[in-house]
């Protein structure tokens, strides 16, 4: 388990004045924030705060209206998602987006796409280089499945797995791209307590592989347990940021959760925030 | 003679308004179901041929024959929805495309049996020679076609904007489940859309038969051009369809007149492709709305 390495001081992701509008609705407004390499960064906020929109912007599925995004010192705003993925950024989806009719192993192999090369001719003709690459792909995919603990299910169709395993498989698929930065969009949604614990452990092991993790999550136990830093979004704008303990005691954050969004984001969030035993 | 351009305008407006009527047929079904009905052109063909049947076979006077043809084709539209489209509610877009294509083949085949392969004619709605405007001739029947188009556009726009049924039909397209929850009978609305669309296609068919004759395999090309107009005008837009249909007709007529008549069909299609490639929401549709549509 690597501690925060010296390079961590250097930001892996820098957002500068980021803004997004849908028609007349402001989804994100003037977000300036830096994520240092090698940490687990959480982003929390009430529903509709713009967390998923922010992920879509960073991963290239959505072009930001204003501002810049720098990932590994490259300006990536406006890039196609596949280019960003090739640069070392990967993600999972809030609503599971696996290739349901493919096997578990194949799903992970698809994740190796940016780290392999064979094109139409090479694969159609089964050139020697392609066979070597295919073998290597398969081995890497298997080792990743072993890493996340799905090794026994390699041959199963992805769509037939229970939700918890599907969420893990999404992470495995994302890991296969060898990301430097991994965006996890509510990975614990729909998981039971035990599964969530295992997930937390997995995320920490991922950080150990020199991968920075950004986590969007509603489960405050998980967030408080594993995060190094937390950013709170409120109506598309940063409200506060800091260590879990600092966030927990921030009056503005409590107000945000308690006040306007009481009904929606619920007392549960608040309670878990307040009575959190961990820190 | 300087009247040539005016003659092209007349020719373009006449064919253009036919395209517009076909385009409107597409729009009605699309508005309610977001299905593109590839059999739309066949409704036009059937309208024309049935009118011939009612006038010459049943000796009905023209207005009655017109109404009978429109109703009969409307009934075919109903049957198409009830017995074919409804069976495929959960089908993929591809399956739906194939289903409507298959239905159009069946309609065409049946028409071939009913009427044979020869073209048929119908007397113009009003007798009398062409009207002359400085050397350019306009057939009175063309005025009927234009008038019919205008009436249909106005009525439909009113229907969809003002009447409770029209609004309910639009709601079905937007979100069928939500519509169902607020008490809109979605099935009835879908049924109604096919009826309406088929009836309008048939009316177009009756109106153009005196000008262009009608035979069993006329539908496909009319359907294609009509779709071009529908896309160009923005799918779902009635006034857009009208303007785009007329534009398409004019473009064809002027192309035939001043450029190459062989490539005039290609002109309409090139316009269609350009619209699809660079402005898929159509000339008059809004891009915001287009993003919300499923296709």
């Amino acid at each position, binding site marked *: 388990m690597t501690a925060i390495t010296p390079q961590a001081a250097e930001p892996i992701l820098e957002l500068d004045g980021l803004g997004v509008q849908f028609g007349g609705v402001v989804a994100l407004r003037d977000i300036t924030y830096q994520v240092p390499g090698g940490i687990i960064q959480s982003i929390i906020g009430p529903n509709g705060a713009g967390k998923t929109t922010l992920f879509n912007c960073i991963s290239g599925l959505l072009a930001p209206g204003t501002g810049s995004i720098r990932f590994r010192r490259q300006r990536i705003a406006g890039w196609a998602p596949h280019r960003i993925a090739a640069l070392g950024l990967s993600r999972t989806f809030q609503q599971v987006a696996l290739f349901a009719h493919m096997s578990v192993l194949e799903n992970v192999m698809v994740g190796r796409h940016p780290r392999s090369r064979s094109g139409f001719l090479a694969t159609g003709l089964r050139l020697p280089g392609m066979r070597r690459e295919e073998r290597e792909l398969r081995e890497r995919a298997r080792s990743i499945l072993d890493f996340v603990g799905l090794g026994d299910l390699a041959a199963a169709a992805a769509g037939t797995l229970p939700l918890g395993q599907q969420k893990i498989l999404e992470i495995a698929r994302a890991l296969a791209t060898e990301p430097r930065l991994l965006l996890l969009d509510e990975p614990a949604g729909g998981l039971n307590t035990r599964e969530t614990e295992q997930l937390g452990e997995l995320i920490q092991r991922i950080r150990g592989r020199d991968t920075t993790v950004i986590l969007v999550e509603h489960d405050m136990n998980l967030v408080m347990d594993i995060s190094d830093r937390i950013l709170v979004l409120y109506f598309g704008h940063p409200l506060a940021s800091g260590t879990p303990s600092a966030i927990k005691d921030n009056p503005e954050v409590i107000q945000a959760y308690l006040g306007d969004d009481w009904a929606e984001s619920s007392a549960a969030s608040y309670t878990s925030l307040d009575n959190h035993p961990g820190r | *003679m300087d*009247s*040539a351009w005016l*003659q*092209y305008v*007349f*020719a*373009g407006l*006449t*064919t253009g308004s*036919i395209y517009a009527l076909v385009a409107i047929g597409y729009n009605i079904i699309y508005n309610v179901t977001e299905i593109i009905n590839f059999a739309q052109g066949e409704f036009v063909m059937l309208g024309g041929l049935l009118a011939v049947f009612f006038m010459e076979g049943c000796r009905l006077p023209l207005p009655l024959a017109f109404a009978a043809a429109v109703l009969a084709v409307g009934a075919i539209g109903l049957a198409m929805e009830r017995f074919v489209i409804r069976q495929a509610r959960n089908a993929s877009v591809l399956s739906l495309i194939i289903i409507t294509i298959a239905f159009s083949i069946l309609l065409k085949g049946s028409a*071939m049996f009913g009427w*044979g*392969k*020869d*073209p*048929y*004619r119908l*007397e113009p709605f009003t007798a009398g*020679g*062409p009207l*002359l405007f400085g050397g*350019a*001739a306009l*057939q009175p029947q063309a005025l009927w076609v234009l008038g019919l188009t205008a009436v249909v556009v106005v009525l439909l726009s009113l229907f969809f904007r003002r009447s409770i049924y029209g609004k309910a039909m639009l709601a079905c397209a937007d979100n069928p489940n939500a519509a169902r929850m607020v008490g809109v009978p979605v099935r009835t609305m879908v049924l109604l859309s096919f009826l309406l669309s088929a009836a309008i296609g048939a009316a177009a068919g009756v109106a*153009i038969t005196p*000008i*262009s*004759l009608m*035979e069993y*395999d*006329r539908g496909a*090309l*009319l359907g294609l051009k009509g779709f071009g107009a529908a896309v160009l005008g923005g799918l779902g837009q009635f006034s857009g369809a009208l303007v785009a249909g007329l534009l398409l007709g004019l473009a*064809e*007529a*002027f192309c*035939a*007149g*001043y450029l*190459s*008549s*062989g490539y*005039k*069909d290609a002109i309409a299609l090139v316009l269609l492709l350009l619209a699809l490639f660079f402005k898929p929401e159509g000339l008059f549709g809004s891009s915001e709305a287009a993003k919300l549509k499923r296709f």
Partner: protein
Amino acid sequence: MKATARWSQGMAVVMLAVALMWPCASVNQARAAAEEYLIGAVFSVTGGASFLGEPEKKTAEMIVEQVNKSGGINGHPVKLVLYDTETDATKCNLAVKKLAKHDNVPIIVGPSTSGESLAVVKVAEEEKVPLISCAASYKIVSPVEERHWVYKVAGSDSHVVGKEFDYMKAKGIKKLAVMTVSDGFGASGREELLRLAPEYGIQIVADETYGPKDTDLTAQLTKIREQKPEAIINWSVGPTQVLAVKAWRDLGMRNIPLYQSHGFGSRKNIELAGGGAEGVLLALARVNIGPLLPDNQPQKAVIMDYTKRYADLYKEPISSFGGHAWDAVTLAIEALKAVGPDRAKIRDYLENKTGFVGQHGVFKFSAKDHNGLGKDDLEMVVVKNGDWALAPWK
């Protein structure tokens, strides 16, 4: 993987189906070996050229039935093996191969269209089976050295063009506007019109085309009017030739005579034009105008006989297309009568056949000419009082 395994089942179904179809095939072959004389036929009974194939099929069936009623050919009953090509070159190609190899016919009549005929020329040559096409293009039988086995009974477009140009020349017309439909029929006519015009001192001042499914031809005719021609000739089949007449009338262009191709030669077209066709001129084969012919005209008897029988049987008037089938099938029967079901002998018989009195003319085949018709086998007619009349040359 399930799906791929299922595939094998599907394949098994196909194989089974193929196997089931086999017995029917062999039965046919067995019958072919009997004393029945076969005549193969491929017509466009459905599809784009069904207006050709339909009367051709009816005519062929009528003649064969007639022959069988009167005791067959030298005592052999005749069987017509007819396939519909759906106006599709691929299907036609396959149908002719089937006739040649599987049904083993000694002679084939058809196909109906030039395109389909050209698509099977190679088959007839390779299979060495005589084929009498009912389509017009001269390419079907030329170069004649490479068309050893192929004949055609429809006059070439050049004959019709020649006849109409003769007439125009007699009327002093020098500036002509041409409008043609962009399908095989129109394209072939256009080629001949443009090619032959200089020979008759005629200048083409406009050359317009349109699609076979067009709904309005006023744009083309307006453009033509701008060029001030002394006559217009339209070359198409189907509804567009009626639309041309309607636009010509509506635009008030009666002062410029309108000529049509022989494709206009059906009374239905006069009806469809709703009185607008008065004065339209065209060159027609005599089969269309039997009653107008003088009694001493050699073709009159066969034409009147065909006209009556066809009308009695099908309750509809004959068309010139049916006449092609009459000529082709009758030729085939005469050949079978003379030399029996031997492909090579039939071919030689056809090549030397002269003086065959048919619906479309008096045929004179030779090694140089596998069509045997000329422009003298046509008559100029004009639409008068809603019917054909011989056109006055003075």
